[in-house]
């Protein structure tokens, strides 16, 4: 039955008809992501190979100058992760590092753990704010006391591969217009649960490939807080981070506005622990997505408006983000409405074909990621290809639903201003301000 109508549907399909039925895939997802990634990386991978001597020269300059690097780790109740983080810092190929831990009002044994690490000389400095002030204020506390030429911001629950700091610094030594470099973020707890496996694949696509491509196109809009390197002078000029959530994207935007380049370095690898249940993941994404509305559209709307400071790549960076996340999120609901109105009889077939299309796209995307990162991928990561056919369900339904809900709530109720992310006193002040 289904098979009959399926072949009948396919034989009827002309190019125009296919476009009409599957426009979201062909016009948007395939062209913005798959095709663009493919085209950019076709140029990027050989370019990277050609520039290997330039990288080697940059490395020599870095090790000759040997500047002090300040690693700052703000956090609350993260004590249990810090011993491992401190250990990966001592294993770095680049050695001239000071580490500054800021405890933002933890109510567990974090201060005890930090004081012990400090006594043992495993961290350089430890600050504790007895009253919680929020993540931005914790990072700014560290920034007030950094002595290094570059600041590397790390999340406490992440750890670095042994050459990560060296690799993330190299772009600064190849181009002085670079103000910040994002490190690649990969999943540490790959095989914990199905949720962590899906996120591993997602991170390869959106962070490793996605940010490398954005970076190549000059429209990178975020240096992740989990692993980001900044020029200290620029951070000090900006007086550090603003109130979150979304403070990473915010500071990246501010650095771009100052006229500096921001780039992604896919070979500087940081491993982070991701939420291991779909419930926790939903909560995390809910928070992330709300910040898009708040920071891109409310706080940095000047980028989108014509003015004397107008800058095309800054415009594109924001526009790309707003368009492909926010607006295209809406397109799905339009598409669904279209199918229900025009051709409700073929809806199962059309959905099935969509799943196949997106499945194939995901396999190709994974192939691109492998081509880009091959040398730095583990077998446990490569083995995840068997889960690829399921990814359209994960991104198509699960992630999309969370995103839609988050945008809706943020537009209507400005919930992020009531976020538990910040202490109430900070949220209160900031809400009355914007």
């Amino acid at each position, binding site marked *: 039955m289904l098979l009959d109508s399926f072949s009948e549907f396919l034989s009827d399909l002309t190019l125009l008809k296919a476009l009409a039925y599957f426009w979201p895939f062909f016009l948007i997802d395939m062209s913005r992501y798959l095709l663009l990634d493919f085209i950019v990386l076709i140029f990027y991978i050989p370019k990277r190979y050609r520039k290997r001597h330039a990288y080697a020269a940059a490395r020599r300059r870095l090790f000759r100058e040997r500047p002090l690097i300040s690693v700052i780790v703000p956090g609350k109740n993260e004590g249990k992760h810090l011993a491992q983080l401190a250990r990966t810092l001592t294993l770095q190929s680049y050695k001239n590092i000071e580490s500054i831990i800021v405890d933002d009002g933890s109510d567990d044994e974090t201060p005890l753990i930090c004081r012990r690490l400090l006594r043992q000389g495993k961290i350089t*400095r*430890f600050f504790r704010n007895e009253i919680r*002030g929020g993540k931005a*204020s914790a990072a*700014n506390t560290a920034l*007030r006391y950094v002595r290094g030429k570059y600041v590397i911001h790390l999340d406490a629950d992440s750890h670095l591969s042994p050459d990560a700091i060296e690799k993330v610094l190299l772009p600064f030594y190849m181009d002085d217009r670079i103000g910040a470099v994002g490190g690649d973020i990969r999943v540490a707890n790959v095989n914990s649960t199905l949720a962590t496996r899906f996120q591993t694949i997602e991170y390869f696509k959106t962070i490793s490939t996605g940010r490398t491509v954005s970076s190549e196109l000059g429209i990178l809009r975020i240096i992740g807080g989990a692993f980001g390197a900044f020029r200290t002078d620029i951070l000090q000029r900006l007086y*550090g981070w603003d109130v979150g959530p979304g403070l990473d994207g915010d500071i990246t935007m501010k650095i771009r506005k100052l006229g500096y380049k921001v780039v992604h370095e896919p070979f500087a690898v940081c491993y982070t622990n991701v939420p291991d249940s779909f419930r926790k993941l939903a909560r995390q994404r809910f928070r992330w997505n709300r910040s898009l509305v708040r920071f891109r559209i409310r706080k940095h709307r000047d980028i989108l408006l014509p003015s004397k400071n107008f800058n095309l790549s800054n415009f594109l960076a924001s526009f790309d983000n707003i368009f492909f996340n926010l607006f295209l999120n809406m397109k799905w609901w339009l598409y669904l409405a279209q199918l229900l109105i025009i051709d409700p009889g073929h809806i199962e077939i059309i959905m099935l074909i969509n799943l196949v299309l997106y499945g194939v796209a995901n396999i190709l995307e994974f192939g691109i990621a492998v081509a880009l990162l091959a040398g730095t991928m583990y077998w446990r990561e490569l083995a995840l290809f068997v889960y690829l056919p399921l990814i359209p369900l994960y991104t198509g339904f699960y992630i999309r639903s969370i995103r839609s809900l988050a945008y809706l709530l943020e537009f209507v109720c400005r919930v992020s201003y009531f976020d538990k992310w910040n202490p109430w*006193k900070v949220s209160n002040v900031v809400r009355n301000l914007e």
Partner: protein
Amino acid sequence: MRKPLIVSATAPEHFPHDMAVCSFAELGAVDIAAVSFLIIPLEADWQQGYADLQRIRRHVDFKIYLCPVLFLLSKKNIPPEILQAADGYVFADSEQLTKECNTWAARLEPVNARIEQLKILSDAGDSSLAFKVLRFIETRDTEFKPIASAREQKGFVYPPLLPLFPKDDISPFQVLDYLESQRLLTATFVSRSYSCTHCDCAFLNFFETCPDCGSNDLRSEELVHHFKCAYVGELSDFIQGEHLVCPKCETRLKQLGVDHDKASVVFHCNACSSIFQEPKIMTSCYNCWRETEPENQVSRQIQAYSITAIGMNAARYGMDSLLQSILESKLNVISHSIFKKILKLESERIARYKISTSSIVIMRLAGIETIYEKLGRRSSEVFNEISKALQEQLRSADVFSVRDENIFLILMPETPVQSADLAISRLNDRIVSLLTTNLNIDCTIHKTIKAVSSDIVLDQEIEHLLRTNAA
């Protein structure tokens, strides 16, 4: 009816003329039973009067050292711990001095009554400091509370007890602790104080130091968090004239807790430019100036003491020395009088048959008091060791007795002096090494070894031993 007696080299200027005066040297000849209390004039320079009080309290005759003492004051500004060292005080210029003295006599009557009940335990007087303290506390029948004093190195002092103590190296704290361990006194908590681990001085300076270089040249800065822009910096970053202005967003700070707060404090070391939040706390001693971490200083419980029923009994009829009771439980210790009889029989036997020699050993363990004064409750362990040493060196035929808890008398029948000397040397070495090497207690053993003969008068020999080694 008992009468007050003024103890002074010269008669004080103002004093009731019906009162008797005697010098300290004459005190021994006075019929103390007729004295209600002693009066010591305390001049503006109180040292002399206090020294007189010390001489009275350090006497060996309990009728003298326990005798109530009042100060006769001519000035008012005497330090409290000096004033409280006596049983009371009267003012020389008081118009009703005689009447006040009578009131004091009535008030001190129970003390005198308790002194009368005490037994004379030895012809030589009370030599044990712990025993003297016990007797003093018993006769006063009150709780002995320490007072904080900047004049005293230990920070706290028991003013009435202090004159009993002859030297600085034996502290009232250890003697009281020992007496409490013997359940002769009970203690109640008053306070807790830190004192120097090197010299026991209670005057410690607590200060913050740099954990990196140890300098105490530190500058502290408050960290200010501006809520609106999340800037965090030192208070001085915000100061602009008379106002606090955020350097990041250039807004003037309004009210602490509303738009900003003070998240924490940061220290800067001026010596090594280190930055930290937790300075290392150190202490230095005002006496020896050594620096020590607070956790390594001695934390001492300061207590008030009062006598127990057992203590009362011990004060009246003699405190069984701990060593003596341990020795008695382990060795066959015979009483002094029986020892004398056996010695007499032995000397007659030797004089009659003239065929063998026996030896008499008189041993004195000088410094035995410091053992419990230094070790307090742990003394019994040492005493057990000493008695074990004695047990192993003595033969079953030897006759053993103890006098005044630190004089050992041993009669060794059929033993020439040389052999006795050898045995006692071994014993001597063992005890000295135990005390000096292991515990760092300065202890010497004085001994006399003689062949038993009818010429020997035991008490004279003991007296001679004590006298020759007293200096």
